[in-house]
């Protein structure tokens, strides 16, 4: 299922373009803020939770997910270069599967890893808060990658729709409107963080662990399946 050439092309496309700047800038910002907070206020679990929950999980992870997920296929469909992948004796599902793995790898490296580092920097992983948020960021990376990859196959405006979802739904409604929280990848992933950190750490989620993990699985598998389907019937005509 995994195709090394498709993976190589996708990595180069993701890390070689201007959009790669966002991939580097956001984690860097998190680490700088974490370092500054640690230097000025010292170790503080409350501040750690606020920074990792409020910025890393609510903003950085979905944004990196949008960049990696849509960027793994959207630009190729937009400029027509995807034809060089499609006009090959290669299963469309293996193209999607490979691109999904690349998007997940990039999202994990640029969001879960910096989250872990920032957590250690902020409070030395006291109460497992750093590990808990990093695990949540990693599982959220998987679901975001699948959903935004799908978005890249269905819309030419994938980045805009993705940003609206990430910034308005996840970051804004996700923290204000209770109903929206239950349909939020962030909350599903936090159910796992809550479990990892234990009750004293103060990490909470609006959904239970089983529900959260089930919904993450459904979103990931469903998104990937539908993206493969879209690619199988992708038509490149209509330019006349």
């Amino acid at each position: 299922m995994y195709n090394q050439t498709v993976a190589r092309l996708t990595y180069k496309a993701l890390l070689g373009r201007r959009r790669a700047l966002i991939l580097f800038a956001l984690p860097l910002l998190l680490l700088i803020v974490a370092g500054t907070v640690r230097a000025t206020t010292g170790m503080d679990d409350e501040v750690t939770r606020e920074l990792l929950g409020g910025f890393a999980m609510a903003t950085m992870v979905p944004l990196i997910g949008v960049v990696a997920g849509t960027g793994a296929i959207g630009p190729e469909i937009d400029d027509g270069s995807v034809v060089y992948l499609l006009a090959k004796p290669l299963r469309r599902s293996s193209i999607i599967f490979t691109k999904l793995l690349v998007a997940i790898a990039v999202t994990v490296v640029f969001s879960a890893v910096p989250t872990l580092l920032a957590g250690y920097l902020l409070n030395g992983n006291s109460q497992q808060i750093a590990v808990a948020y990093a695990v949540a960021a990693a599982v959220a990376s998987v679901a975001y990658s699948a959903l935004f990859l799908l978005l890249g196959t269905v819309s030419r405006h994938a980045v805009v729709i993705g940003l609206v979802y990430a910034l308005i739904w996840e970051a804004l409604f996700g923290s204000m409107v209770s109903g929206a929280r239950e349909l939020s990848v962030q909350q599903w992933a936090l159910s796992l963080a809550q479990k990892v950190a234990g009750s004293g750490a103060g990490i909470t989620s609006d959904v239970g662990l089983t529900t959260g993990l089930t919904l993450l699985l459904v979103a990931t598998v469903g998104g990937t399946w539908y993206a493969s389907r879209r690619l199988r019937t992708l038509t490149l005509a209509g330019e006349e």
Partner: protein
Amino acid sequence: MSTLHIDRTSRWFGNVVAVNDITMDITPGVTGLLGPNGAGKSTLINMLGGFLPPSTGSVTLDSTPIWRNQEAYKEIGLVPEREGMYDFLTGWDFVLANAELHRLPDPAAAARKALATVEMEQAQDRKIATYSKGMRQRVKMASALVHDPSVLLLDEPFNGMDPRQRMQLMELLRRMGDEGRTVLFSSHILEEVEQLASHIEVVVAGRHAASGDFRKIRRLMTDRPHRYLVRSSDDRLLASALIADASTAGIELDYSEKALRIQAVDFGRFTEVLPRLAREHGIRLYTVSPSDESLESVFSYLVAA
């Protein structure tokens, strides 16, 4: 040796019929798909390339359907019209990636051979973003040839090329045809098709308008009735003199334009008769201009032919 069959095929997008009940076979050698812009050429090429299902009818390669059949790409090399082609790669990386995607036993050797065929070895280590239009086209060709396909499909391959690049590509395609490959390219320029293709298929407004060698198509185009707009010192007298001659099928006095609209059926004779009759009757000719020389109007005669 492979043959592409298009059998009673139509394709529509919503209410727009792009391809209307076309039947044709594309056999080994070079075939030119000729038609004005918007005639349905790209839709046909997209169906032949497996990127679009026919709404009705069938499109097959040696009797195997092409739509949703990835195995067909072992035999098909595709040169799309669109420019997108991984600009951040070098020419070498791009062609090599195409060879790998075909799962060739020795992708590097295949890439080397394909780049040599299009004479791009010198520039193969430069990024595609730095290539000229002609170089991009040649690298696209190399990527289409890398797996030694028996069918080559090219959508408007000469667009934007300078005359030298055009000649090089024509030479290459001619060679591919001579080797027994089935080469189909689309174009809206008759001269382009005439220079290269041994066989021409003409498509106008989604319909299959004509088929044959270029001499037959040329004759159809020049034998059609020609329309002229003529202004003279005595339009009525000129009209009466012209209508008596067999080269003219109809004349209209256009009051608003203050001119004659003439339909000539024998183009060669008409051009000789008009000045002679004017001289004999002492009429001065002010304007003689063909009024329907646009490509679309030329093609529209073929639909009726």
